């Protein structure tokens, strides 16, 4: 098993319409943009193909995981050996982050990663705002190519601050 296999599986999940779209977020996304940090799982925001008005369910994802022999451990699916948490987009900010995801190439696999400007905003959401996450948001602020204007715009529109 290889890290690239797990990324490939995310694309397969999308190709098979288990999810409409996805974006890697959290610490693993941070590793794509800045220096490595210790993390034990991969967080993936997903848009589910749910008809309007119906309840969001992870049933389709679990069925897909089972069909491929991926074990479920608590709130994680072990995709090609990588504990992966697939989180249905909970709000407008995360939907924007998924839509704005950037394709990054890893060992020949194109994978969608939330841009640093959106990662900062996701880290600063009240429900996610721990000291560790605020520190990670600060790490991203030091990126040389960060679009600070876009960060300010996202934070303003979603009522977030440091």
């Amino acid at each position, binding site marked *: 098993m*290889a890290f690239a*296999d797990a990324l490939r599986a995310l694309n397969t999940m999308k190709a098979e319409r288990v999810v409409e779209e996805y974006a890697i977020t959290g610490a693993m996304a941070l590793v794509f943009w800045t220096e490595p940090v210790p*993390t*034990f*799982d991969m967080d993936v925001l997903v848009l589910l193909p749910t008809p309007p008005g119906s309840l969001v369910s992870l049933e389709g994802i679990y069925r897909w995981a089972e069909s491929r022999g991926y074990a479920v451990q608590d709130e994680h699916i*072990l995709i090609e*050996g990588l504990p992966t948490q697939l989180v249905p987009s909970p709000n407008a900010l995360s939907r924007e982050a998924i839509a704005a995801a950037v394709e*990054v190439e890893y060992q020949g696999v194109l994978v969608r990663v939330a841009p640093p400007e959106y990662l900062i905003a996701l880290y600063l959401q009240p429900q996610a705002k721990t000291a560790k996450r605020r520190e990670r948001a600060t790490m991203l602020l030091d990126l040389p190519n960060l679009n600070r204007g876009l960060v300010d715009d996202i934070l303003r529109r979603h009522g977030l601050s440091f």
Partner: protein
Amino acid sequence: MTSLDGMASHSELQDAELPSAALLDQLWKGKAALHRRHANLPLREKIRLVIELQRIVLPLIARQRALRSWERPWDIEP
């Protein structure tokens, strides 16, 4: 004066020569350069380092709280 346990006394610490501003500046710049080098590593090397970090921090986390089922070093190729 050295205390009974062999450690430097409070007054000795106060009298010790402080690092110069230039030395501190050099250390901070070196630290920043290290962070930049890590940030600019090839992605595959970064994933290899993530797995290495997992092996380092796991025993430290285990000393503080019970590990969750998925908290273990990845058994995968970077």
